């Protein structure tokens, strides 16, 4: 007979073997990472280009995103529709995504169709058409999409937050989708120039996960990617950080029943020595359901469906922020509680909290490698942030080694509620008067990008 009053203890410790990756370079300089995984007859290919929207030129914000949208609008022997049909008939999923730092081109294919899928993939990489008519259509599509952004408080809050956080001169300041006026001035030739200078094997890496052998992958990638755009490694541009003065930016959204709240500030970058300490700090503060911020705002006060905090790492910048959506009447209350939690964590965390956070992250580790997508994403992170090859081998030790004084020092060094930038997107009539108590400048803005 079991005794329900007693929580069961875990059975024997599990053994987990980290999937090993092999690394090699193609002759053209493309770095390749391969992980063999043969549970299912499928493969994933992720090509990562160091060519995200931070390379958008001044006055042409939105160019890189448009560039990435144009890559599969016709390539090699196929126009856009034919190309899409060729992938679909194989049951392959081909996707292109862009963020501030990178363009990601990904392929998911059945093993039996890998070579044909890869051939089509290489057409997109080596021989995009950048056709004038297709370009005009994609440009119009993106301008309509920008118009639609005005509907979405969540997006507006995110855009205003990053824009004010980084300030005008910083490339991370601008939304990935770009600016309306700028997009109108981007021409097809801009895309062709960008392709020549940035879209090169030396500025990229390929991650392959799935049911194959290293020699076969090497053979296939050489066969299809050998004659890709020569070119070198483009110059890196270091970005400037920006100090915010703790203003509140209010974006009016007529009739909004919820207020989107963002509060945060610049933080130390990904290669900072206290990275793991910050990770544990945030696990206590706002990284998961049981963290302080969510338990307070949701499970105690009922102000929101959920609230979280995060350290967000770009290649050349990082910031800390808290994000939530609350019913309009509780905008001020929620802000007060968030600031209270940030101040509170600077007073120190408990040994129990640290132990809990360590246990949670350590035990979760194996499930970070469940699917081909997970594994490819982990290796991509290593590549983007130039992490050492043994990053995942030492990951658990790095978490275990963090002490309570490390976390408490990180809290003092990296959490700054006093001069945090605050963005609220909601109905001015309901929320304006709730913002007075914080004693900060309230700046009303209609335009998401100043």
């Amino acid at each position: 007979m079991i005794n329900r009053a007693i929580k069961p203890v875990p059975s024997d410790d599990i053994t987990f073997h980290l999937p090993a990756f092999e690394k090699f370079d193609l002759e053209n300089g493309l770095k390749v990472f391969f992980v063999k995984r043969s549970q299912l007859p499928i493969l994933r290919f992720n090509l990562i280009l160091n060519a995200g929207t931070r390379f958008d030129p001044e006055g042409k914000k939105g160019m890189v995103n448009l560039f990435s949208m144009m890559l599969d609008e016709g390539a090699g022997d196929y126009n856009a529709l034919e190309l899409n049909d060729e992938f679909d008939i194989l049951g392959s999923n081909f996707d292109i995504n862009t963020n501030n730092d990178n363009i990601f081109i990904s392929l998911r294919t059945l093993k039996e169709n890998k070579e044909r899928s890869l051939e089509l993939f290489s057409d997109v990489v080596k021989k995009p058409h950048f056709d004038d008519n297709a370009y005009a259509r994609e440009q119009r599509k993106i301008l309509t999409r920008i118009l639609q952004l005005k509907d979405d408080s969540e997006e507006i809050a995110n855009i205003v937050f990053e824009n004010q956080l980084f300030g005008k001169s910083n490339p991370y300041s601008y939304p990935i989708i770009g600016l309306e006026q700028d997009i109108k001035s981007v021409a097809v030739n801009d895309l062709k120039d960008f392709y020549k200078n940035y879209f090169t094997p030396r500025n990229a890496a390929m991650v392959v996960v799935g049911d194959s052998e290293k020699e076969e992958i090497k053979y296939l990638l050489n066969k299809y990617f050998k004659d890709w755009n020569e070119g070198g490694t483009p110059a890196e541009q270091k970005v400037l950080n920006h100090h915010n003065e703790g203003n509140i930016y209010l974006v009016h959204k007529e009739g909004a029943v919820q207020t989107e709240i963002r509060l945060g500030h610049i933080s130390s970058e990904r290669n900072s020595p206290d990275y793991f300490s910050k990770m544990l700090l945030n696990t206590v503060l706002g990284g998961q359901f049981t963290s302080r911020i969510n338990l307070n705002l949701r499970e105690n006060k009922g102000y929101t469906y959920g609230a979280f905090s995060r350290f967000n790492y770009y290649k050349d910048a990082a910031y800390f922020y808290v994000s939530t959506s609350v019913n309009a009447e509780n905008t001020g209350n929620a802000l007060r509680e968030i600031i209270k939690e940030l101040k509170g964590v600077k007073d120190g965390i408990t040994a129990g909290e640290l132990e809990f956070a360590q246990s949670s992250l350590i035990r979760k580790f194996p499930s970070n490698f469940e699917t081909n997508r997970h594994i490819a994403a982990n290796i991509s992170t290593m590549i983007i942030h130039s992490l050492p090859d043994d990053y995942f081998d030492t990951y658990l030790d790095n978490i275990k080694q963090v002490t309570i004084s490390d976390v408490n020092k990180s809290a003092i060094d990296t959490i700054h509620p006093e001069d945090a930038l605050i963005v609220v997107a909601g109905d001015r009539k309901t929320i304006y008067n709730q913002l007075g108590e914080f004693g900060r400048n309230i700046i009303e803005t209609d335009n998401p990008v100043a």
Partner: protein
Amino acid sequence: MDLLNIDYDKYTLGNGLDVILHKNDSLPIVAVNIWYKAGSSNEKKGKTGIAHLFEHMMFQGSLNVAKEQHFKFIQEAGGTLNGSTSFDRTNYYEKVPSNFLELILWLESDRMGYLLPALTQEKLNNQKDVVTNERLERYDNQPYGLAWEKLINAVYPEGHPYNWPTIGFINDIASFTLDDVRSFFNTYYAPANASLCITGRFDKQQTKDHIENYFGSIPGGKSVQLKVKDPGPLEKDILITHKENVQLERLYLAWRTDKGFGPDDAALDILADILSGSKNARLYKNLVYDKEIAQDVTAYQYSGKYAGHFMIIVTAKPGHSLDIIKSEIFKELELICNQGVSSRELLRSKNGIKSGFIYSMQNLDILADQLNFYSFALNNPNSFNADLERYELVSDDDIKKSVSTYLQKCYTELRILPNEKQAI
């Protein structure tokens, strides 16, 4: 296909709880998934949203688990967890390292058997606030966020249990009492009305023993069968217009169709893909690509246990008329009805569906949920091949028939239009 032929054990405990076990040793992880055969279709008008609110209460602790501890125990074990509510069922699921399986069985059995002793007014008030915020955030404050509830309210007749949204209406959510929660629990949350599925790495005999020990002594209760009349076809077109703070006009067309696993369900799925699933899809190519009168288009078949509907959603480009878009949609449907679709179009959809089945086998939690779904709908968890075969067998004639039988009948039309005066 051997790949989709899942090795499993299915058996029923003395109290009626169905158990499905599928071992997969590739990682030291285990996924647990429980279906309760209760959803918003078990609600009444005026008391909508109780199934979903109840789902929230299941995370508030039980006799031997204090408030917040349910989440804490699982997150401390490095696990993930959640639940979801639909018309037909509510599910709860966790994924943890294999050595914490017993913890999950303890937690799930404690709330299946012993939730009520831990229920308090304070917890209920808190979760009513949380759910109200969930509704405001995910529906009321989203652009076009009220479209779903306006549509189903018209697509399904008064008295049909799909007539209201799972999230519930604000006033109904506010009205729930402890007695409502208790009565919902007593009616639906019983072993005989539930199914437990475990996938991943575990010791089979030991797990069977644990399941018997933790769940076997919970009183069985009853399996609840709902009697639902088939709504039949709509008798006349229904037109709804709604203005809100959006930039672009959007058109929704909905037809009553077949239910899940009904004879025409698979053909309707493939039809949806042929209309909007890719750049070459009929409506996408026509409206978005060639004519550029629409910004986006989506078509899908919603397949419930008791009924289904087919939906087409199109957002107009600025300055383009929904009337023209609508007439283009009907022209495409007529074309398919008269001339059918090409063998290439059929093959493209079928290949996408087939590879989708294979890709989905990677996730233990998706697998566990799917096994419970098949067991619920077909009484056989190992139905991947049978399910795939439904799609393989769809012919050009089936597609034509699905258009003529369902989509050339009366429909519900919703237009969401921008308010005259625009504010950001």
